[in-house]
C-alpha cells in the first residue's frame, strides 16, 4: 500500500487537472456562445433601429400626404358623420332618404381599417336620384356605391335602394 501512494496521488492530481481543464474549456466555450448570441442580437437590434429610423424619416417626409389620406377615412368615432353626409346629400339633391342599416365589419386582409356598410333607399325623380348617387360617388371620402336598384314608382317618381361602403379606422 505504501508503494501505491505516489500512484494514487498522481491519479488524483491527474483527475483534478482534467476537471480544472474541462471546467475552463467548457467555460470558454459557453462564454464564446454567449458573446455570439449577444453580438447577433445586438446586430439585429441595430438593424431594426436603422430600419425604424428610416421608416420614421419616411413618415415624417410624407406627413402632409398622410394627413390628406386620413381625411378620406372615417374616424373611429365618426360613424355618425357618414349618416350626416348622406342626409346632407339627399337634402341637397331633393330626394327623400331612408337609411335602413349601418353596420361596421372587418374585411379579410385589413388590420387597421374596417368597412362601414350602409343600406339606404331614396325616393325622387330619376334625375334627382341619379344626381344624388353621383354626388355620393364624389364625396371626399373613401366611399363607393356597391350596388343599386332603381325602379319607376309613378309617372315621374322613382324609388331606389342602394348599398354603399365607407372605410373607417379600426378601433
Amino acid at each position, binding site marked *: 500500500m505504501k508503494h501505491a501512494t505516489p500512484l494514487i496521488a498522481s491519479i488524483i492530481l*491527474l483527475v483534478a487537472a482534467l476537471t480544472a481543464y474541462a471546467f475552463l474549456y467548457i467555460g470558454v466555450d459557453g462564454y464564446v456562445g454567449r458573446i455570439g448570441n449577444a453580438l447577433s442580437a445586438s446586430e439585429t437590434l441595430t438593424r431594426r433601429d436603422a430600419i425604424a429610423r428610416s421608416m420614421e424619416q419616411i413618415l415624417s417626409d410624407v406627413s402632409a400626404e398622410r394627413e390628406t389620406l386620413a381625411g378620406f377615412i372615417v374616424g373611429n368615432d365618426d360613424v355618425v358623420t357618414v349618416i350626416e353626409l348622406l342626409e346632407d346629400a339627399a337634402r341637397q339633391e331633393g330626394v327623400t332618404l331612408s337609411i335602413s342599416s349601418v353596420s361596421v365589419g372587418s374585411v379579410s386582409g385589413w388590420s387597421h381599417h374596417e368597412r362601414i356598410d350602409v343600406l339606404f333607399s331614396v325616393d325622387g325623380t330619376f334625375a334627382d336620384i341619379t344626381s344624388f348617387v353621383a354626388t355620393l360617388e364624389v364625396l371626399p371620402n373613401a366611399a363607393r356605391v356597391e350596388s343599386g336598384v332603381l325602379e319607376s314608382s309613378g309617372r315621374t317618381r322613382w324609388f331606389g335602394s342602394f348599398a354603399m361602403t365607407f372605410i373607417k379606422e379600426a378601433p
Partner: protein
Amino acid sequence: MVNLLPQPEQRRLTSAYYMRLATVFCLMVGTAVALGGVLLMPSYLVSRASADSYERYRAALEGSVGLKERAYTSEDVAELIERIRITESYAKSAFTAELIDGFGDKLTPGIRITAISFTRTDSGASVTLGGTALTRQALLTFADALRASPSFTQVSLPVSQLVTEQDATFSITASFERK
C-alpha cells in the same frame, strides 16, 4: 543473463516498476493538462469579461428609449401601406353617371326603362335593365345599340322576350365596362 532473484522478488520488482511507470505517466499527463489549464486561464477570463460586456451592451440597446419609441413606427408604416392600398382601390370608383349616360344615349323611340339594377364588379358593373318596348323592332334596335357600344359587353336579351310584337316587357342583362 540468468536472473538469480527468486520468483516472488522478481514479480514484486516488476510490479513496482509498472507502478512507477504509471505514476510518471499520470504525473506527466497531469502536468501537461494543468499547464494547458493555466494557458487557458487568460482566455477564460477574457471571454467571461467580454460576454458580460456584450450582454450589457445588448441590454442597453434593448432598453434604449429611441428603439422603444420607434417600435410604433413599423405599425404606422403598415397602417399607411394598408390605407394607400384601400384608397387606391376606392379611387376612381364613380361609375353610375357614366352608366346611366351609357345606356341613356342608346335609348331609342318606343323604349321605356322602368327598372335598373347594378352591382359593382372589378372592371365596372353587371347591369340589368328592365322596361317596356312599344314594338319588337324598337327593342331589337335598342339591344343592338347597346351591343354596338364599347361600354357594354355580354348584352343578353332572352329570345322569349321577342315573342310579343307590341308592348313587350323586357329585361336586358349586360356588363358595363368603365372607361
